[in-house]
C-alpha cells in the first residue's frame, strides 16, 4: 500500500517540478517575435538597399511594426508598397505631395562613365555590369530602382528613367464614364 503511495507521490512531484521548469524556461528564454514584423518584412522589396535610413529591410520592418518609422521611406517599393502598408497598418499616408512617377530603373549614360566601379560596389542586386576603366551598364531586369548608384557616381553618369511603354506591357486604361452630371441637390423637407 505504502509502496503505491510512494510511487504516486514521487511521480507527481517529478511532474510538477519538470512542469514548472518548463514554464519558467518558456517565459525566460522566449524569443520575441512579432508576427506583424514578419509580415511587414515579407512585404518589403528585400534588396537591403538602405535608402530608408535603416540597415536593411528587416530593420525598417521592425521600426514600422513599433510605429517608429514613416511608411513612405521605401524608395524601391514605391507607391504600391506605401498603399499596401497603409492598409496593413491602418495609417493614412499622405500621398498628395508625392507624385507617382511609376517604377523607374537606373540608366548609365555611357559617354560620361569613367569606369570607376563605385556603382558596382554599391548595387545591392548585382544589376550593374562593367570593369575597372571600362564602361558600365545596367541590367534592367535586375534593377529595382533604389537609386543608390546615382548618388555615388562621381561624374553624374547615372540617371533614373521610367520603364518605356511597349507592346508587351501596354494595356487599356480605365474607362472614363461620360455621364458626369452633378447630382441634384437634395433639400430636406421641413
Amino acid at each position, binding site marked *: 500500500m505504502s509502496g503505491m503511495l510512494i510511487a504516486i507521490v514521487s511521480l507527481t512531484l517529478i511532474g510538477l517540478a519538470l512542469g514548472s521548469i518548463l514554464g519558467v524556461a518558456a517565459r525566460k528564454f522566449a524569443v520575441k517575435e512579432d508576427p506583424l514584423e514578419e509580415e511587414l518584412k515579407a512585404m518589403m522589396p528585400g534588396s537591403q538597399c538602405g535608402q530608408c535610413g535603416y540597415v536593411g529591410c528587416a530593420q525598417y520592418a521592425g521600426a514600422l511594426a513599433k510605429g517608429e518609422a514613416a511608411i513612405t521611406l521605401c524608395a524601391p517599393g514605391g507607391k504600391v508598397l506605401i498603399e499596401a502598408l497603409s492598409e496593413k497598418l491602418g495609417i493614412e499616408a499622405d500621398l498628395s505631395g508625392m507624385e507617382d512617377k511609376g517604377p523607374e530603373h537606373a540608366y548609365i549614360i555611357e559617354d560620361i562613365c569613367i569606369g570607376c566601379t563605385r556603382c558596382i560596389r554599391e548595387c545591392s542586386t548585382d544589376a550593374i555590369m562593367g570593369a575597372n576603366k571600362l564602361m558600365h551598364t545596367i541590367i534592367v531586369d535586375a534593377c529595382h530602382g533604389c537609386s543608390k548608384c546615382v548618388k555615388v557616381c562621381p561624374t553624374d553618369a547615372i540617371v533614373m528613367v521610367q520603364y518605356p511603354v511597349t507592346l508587351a506591357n501596354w494595356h*487599356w486604361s480605365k*474607362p472614363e464614364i461620360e*455621364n458626369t452630371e452633378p447630382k441634384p441637390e437634395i433639400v430636406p423637407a421641413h
Partner: protein
Amino acid sequence: MKLFPIRGGIHPEYRKDLTSEQAIVVMPMPAALYIPLQQHIGAPAEILVAEGDLVKKGQMIARNQGAVSASQHAPTSGRIKSVAEVAAPHPSGLPQKTIILEPDGKDEWADLPAPIADPFAASPHEIHERVAQSGIVGMGGAAFPSAVKLNLGTQKKLETLLLNGAECEPYLTCDDRVMREYADEVIDGARIMAHALGTPRVVIGIEENKPQAIEIMTRAAAAFPNVEIAAVPVQYPMGSERHLVQAITGRETPARKLTADLGVVVHNVATARAVHHAVRFGRPLVARVVTVSGSAIRKPSNVMTPIGTLVADLVEFCGGFSARPESVVNGGPMMGQPLPSLDVPVVKGTSGILALTAEEINGSPTSACIRCGSCVTVCPCGLSPVDMAAFIRKDNLDVAAKLGVMDCFSCGSCSYVCPSHIPLVHYFNYAKGVLRELENDRRKNERIKTLAEVRTIRIEKATEAKRAALAARKPASDAAPSGNAGEAKATTEEKANA
C-alpha cells in the same frame, strides 16, 4: 453527332452576307511589305537579313527563338529596303521592329524544303519541325505558334483534334470561304495534324449559318471515317476554343487549364490549310485570307493578302471607303480591336479588317446600372460582370480578381446586351492589364530578393575568406615558440596596417 449546350451567349446581327458569297480574290503585290518580327504570342523572331539583301519568296527572313516563337518568311521576292520601327496593328499604335521589303514583281520562289512524301509515315517530330520551320501560327486571331500546340501530344494523352470552323464573329467570312474553296486542303492538313498529335479522331465544328461550308466539308471528309463534321448551333461565342470543346464533348475546361487537359486540341481551319501547304509543298505561311467588310467599305471582299500588306493598301484594293468610317477594326466587331491608323501591316493573325460606320457602332452614352442582370445571364464563362465592373470602377482589383476577372476572355457579350451601355469589357481589359502588370512586378521583386540574398551571402563569404587568410598568415609569421596571444595579435595588426 450528339451536341451539348453552352452557357450564355448572344445572337447579334451577323451581317455575313456582305462577303459570304464573294469568292476569295488574290491581292496584287503592293509597293512595299511590312513584316513585323513579332506577329505571334511569345518571343519575337531573330532577324536574319540586312538592308539591301535580295530575298526570294518563302525565304526565312527571321528565325524563331526560344520555346514559344515563330519564324517569318518573305511573302514575295524582292529587296530588303530597311529594318525599322513601324506602328503595329494594335490599338496602342506603338511601334515594333519590322522588316520592310520592296517586291521586285517576279514573285520567284526560293529553294523550299522538300515536301514530305508520305506525312502519315513520317514521325510526329518531323511534322512539328516542318510546321515550326514554316512560321505557322494560329490563324483564328490569337496567333499562338502552331508547332508548340502540335507538340502537346508528347506531354498529354489526346483523343480529339477539334478543327474550329465556327467563325462566330459577325461580318467575318474568311474561314467560311477557305472551307468552301479549299475543303480538301483543310481536311488533309487536319489529318496531318491529327497524325502529329496522335489523336485518333478529328471533329470539324462549323456553325449552322454556313450550310454550304458544312455540305462541302462533309463531302470532302466522306472518304475518311475518322473525320467528322459537327454542325454547331449559331450562338456567339461558339468559336471560343473552350466553348466549342464544351459543345462537342460536353465537358467544361477548368479555369487556368488547357483544353488539352481534357484530351482535345483546337486548331483553326485556315491553320490546317497552312499545315497542308507546309508539309505537302514545303511552302511557309506568307499569305492569308482576310475579310474586308463593313458598311464603309465600297467593295466588301475576301482577299488573299500577302503578309505585311498595309491595311491602307488592302482597303484601297477593296475600292476604298464609301462613307466615313467611324472606326476601323482589326478582327471581328465583338473581340476585334480598333486600329489607330491604316498604316499598319496585315499580320498572320489578321482575320478581318472592318470599316464601320456610326450606325454600326454603339455610340450611346453610358448611364447608371439598373441591376437588370442581363450581363450575368449572357456571360458564357458564368461570371458576374456587373459585380466585377463595380469593383474595378472603385479600383478594388483584388476583389475583381477573386470574382474571376482573369477567367473572362473579353468576348464582349456583356457590353453588347447592357441596356445602360456600360463599357463592361473595357473595365475587364483594364483590370486584366493591371493585374498582369502587378503579377510581373511581384515576380521581378521575388527575383531581385534572391539576387540581393545571393549577394549578401557572397560578401559574407568573401569577408570570411579574408579573415581566414589573415589567420592563416598569423602562425607563419609567428613561428617563434612564444605562444603569446597578445603579441601574435599585434603582429597581425601591424601587418594589416602595413
